[in-house]
């Protein structure tokens, strides 16, 4: 074959076009993260922008989705994770550890961890870095419920019969509520069968996911339901007649949210993930996280709950002292079996 000038130029141009994305990628580093997929992503996006300012060429793309969906995707991709990091609740970390798809964070590389309330890091299970927490309480319609429940056991009062909703146990919320139910009636938190039978007594309407449960409450199909405090705060902030109770016995319940990184050895983003977690733990970031409209619970010591958020987040000394979480390492592995039992009883 005779090489002509046109052939060589064409070849060079083709190569340039083909290699352009690689060259651009080398100059810019994009972190891909699983977030919430709604307004709750704002603190993450903001911290991502700060990360970009400190590291020119670095950007953060937050993709909405559930952390459990991410686990399925990583498994489908045969370990080649499409994500670099995620914000993940403690139970999802337990499930992810079973799948071995997380690369533990080195907390020594996150200086601000020194300012975190020592109650939170253990819920990262030596893998994640806590950045906030969400409370599990009861959201209710303020127009139809005059005296909302104060304890988990109160939900079984006759006045609430046929008015309560619940989330399916595949969600952390649904699973956590079942564990809290068992604890409320002096059973072991992992006695899911007992909890399911107790909930059967209430004949609840079931939301397929926490957001769908929240919509059922907003549409007036139910009058009250266990819900995340952040979802309740956002709905109330939007003007809906929704109140929230920080339920006790056990509680107020909280679920720490952690930054975790996926096994993704090819692109070496680990240093950036650590820096990102550190930014989220800075005092200014924590104030933003704990502020309106989300009122996430903050993990850094010394951050006061804003006035507007006190209905949603434990703020008094007494509340903070009694705030607790659940035995997630015992509960999370029961997720699959509990979902099957739930379907036998509620959808069978």
């Amino acid at each position, binding site marked *: 074959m005779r090489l002509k000038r046109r052939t060589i130029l064409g070849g060079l141009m083709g190569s340039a076009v083909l290699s352009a994305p690689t060259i651009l990628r080398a100059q810019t580093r994009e972190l891909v993260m699983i977030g919430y997929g709604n307004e709750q992503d704002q603190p993450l996006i903001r911290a991502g922008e700060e990360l970009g300012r400190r590291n020119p060429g670095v950007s953060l793309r937050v993709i909405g989705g*559930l952390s459990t969906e991410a686990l399925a995707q990583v498994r489908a991709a045969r*370990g080649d994770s499409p994500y670099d990091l995620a914000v993940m609740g403690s139970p999802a970390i337990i499930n992810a550890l079973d799948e071995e798809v997380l690369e533990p964070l080195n907390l020594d590389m996150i200086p601000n961890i020194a300012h975190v309330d020592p109650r939170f890091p253990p819920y990262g299970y030596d893998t994640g870095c806590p950045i906030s927490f969400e409370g599990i309480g009861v959201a209710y319609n303020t127009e139809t419920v005059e005296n909302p429940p104060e304890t988990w056991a109160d939900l079984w009062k006759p006045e609430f019969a046929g008015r309560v909703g619940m989330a399916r146990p595949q969600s952390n919320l649904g699973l956590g509520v079942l564990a809290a139910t068992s604890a409320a009636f002096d059973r072991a938190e992992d006695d899911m069968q007992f909890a399911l039978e107790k909930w059967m007594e209430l004949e609840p309407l079931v939301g397929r996911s926490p957001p769908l449960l929240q919509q059922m409450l907003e549409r007036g199909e139910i009058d009250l339901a266990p819900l995340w405090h952040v979802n309740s705060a956002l709905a109330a902030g939007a003007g809906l007649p929704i109140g929230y109770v920080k339920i006790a016995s056990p509680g107020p319940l909280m679920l720490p949210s952690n930054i975790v990184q996926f096994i993704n050895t090819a692109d070496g983003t680990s240093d950036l993930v650590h820096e990102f977690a550190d930014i989220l733990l800075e005092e200014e970031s924590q104030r933003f996280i704990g502020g309106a409209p989300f009122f996430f619970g903050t993990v850094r010591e010394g951050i006061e709950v804003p006035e507007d958020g006190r209905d949603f987040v434990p703020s008094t000394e007494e509340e903070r002292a009694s705030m607790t979480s659940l035995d997630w390492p015992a509960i999370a592995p029961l997720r699959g079996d509990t*979902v099957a039992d739930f379907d036998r009883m*509620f*959808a069978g």
Partner: protein
Amino acid sequence: MVTISAPPDKPRRMDWLFDKLLSGQGIWPAVPAIIVLTVVAVIPFVMLLSLGVSEFSVSRGQIIDQTFSMRHVTSVLTDQLYWTTFQRSMSLALTTTAICLLLGYPVAYVFLIGGKWTRRMILILTIAPLLTSGIVRTYAWLVILGGRGVLNTAMMNIGLIDQPLRIVNTHWAVLIGMVQIHLPVMILPLIAVMSRHDRKLEEASANLGATRMGTLRNVVLPLSAPGIGTGAALVFTLSYTTFVVPQLLGGGNYLNAATMIYEQVVYSLEWSKASVMSMLLMSSCLVVLVGIALVTNHFTGWTRGRQG
């Protein structure tokens, strides 16, 4: 005088391949589609199905050990939950198909006998919903059927009911949503087949003394059998494997095969059971489709005989 002509170009392999692909003969034109389908559908599907008949362990997201086992198949087949779920899916799909046929056939018949504007209107009304996402159409039913929805509000305003009826998050909401979403899929094949009818056959039937009902039963209906078969097969397949409508309108207490598979893959990470369920879903769907094809063939036998 001797003229020397250049030897003909040796046909190159690429030219030969393009000739074959563009020839429009045999299987060749379908080769690109077959390759794409094999890579993006068949291979992943076989890999997924293989999980149903194996035990495997996962490390760092990769399957590291896989051995043949029928444990998951047996466990699914002996669990009443799965039978109940499939029974619910099957009855929902068959009911949806029957209602779509009952509602769709008259529309297609009006299209057949109607004037130009009627036909245009029917086509627009049938195709317009398909231009929006199924999720949007399903959410619209939440607005209509919800506790504070249009239907309940209207019935309460005219004094028919005192309390809102609970429609959303029930089997009925799912059925209503399914029929509305899949009705166009029934109407369009019916229209396509019935439009090909020779209207003179109906005139001949009338001239020979048949009533309108007699003509409909003995002429129009048999001629439209292929459309009924196609529409029924499409609606059944879509209804049997549907995910969005039960997910949004059925509530968390409602479970059909597709939602169960989704939850097992995504939330419970029980891929083996999901794989077995996928196999069952696909094979039971095929059985019904073969049934529909046989019935359709039976009723179109005389038509094919005439054409032959």
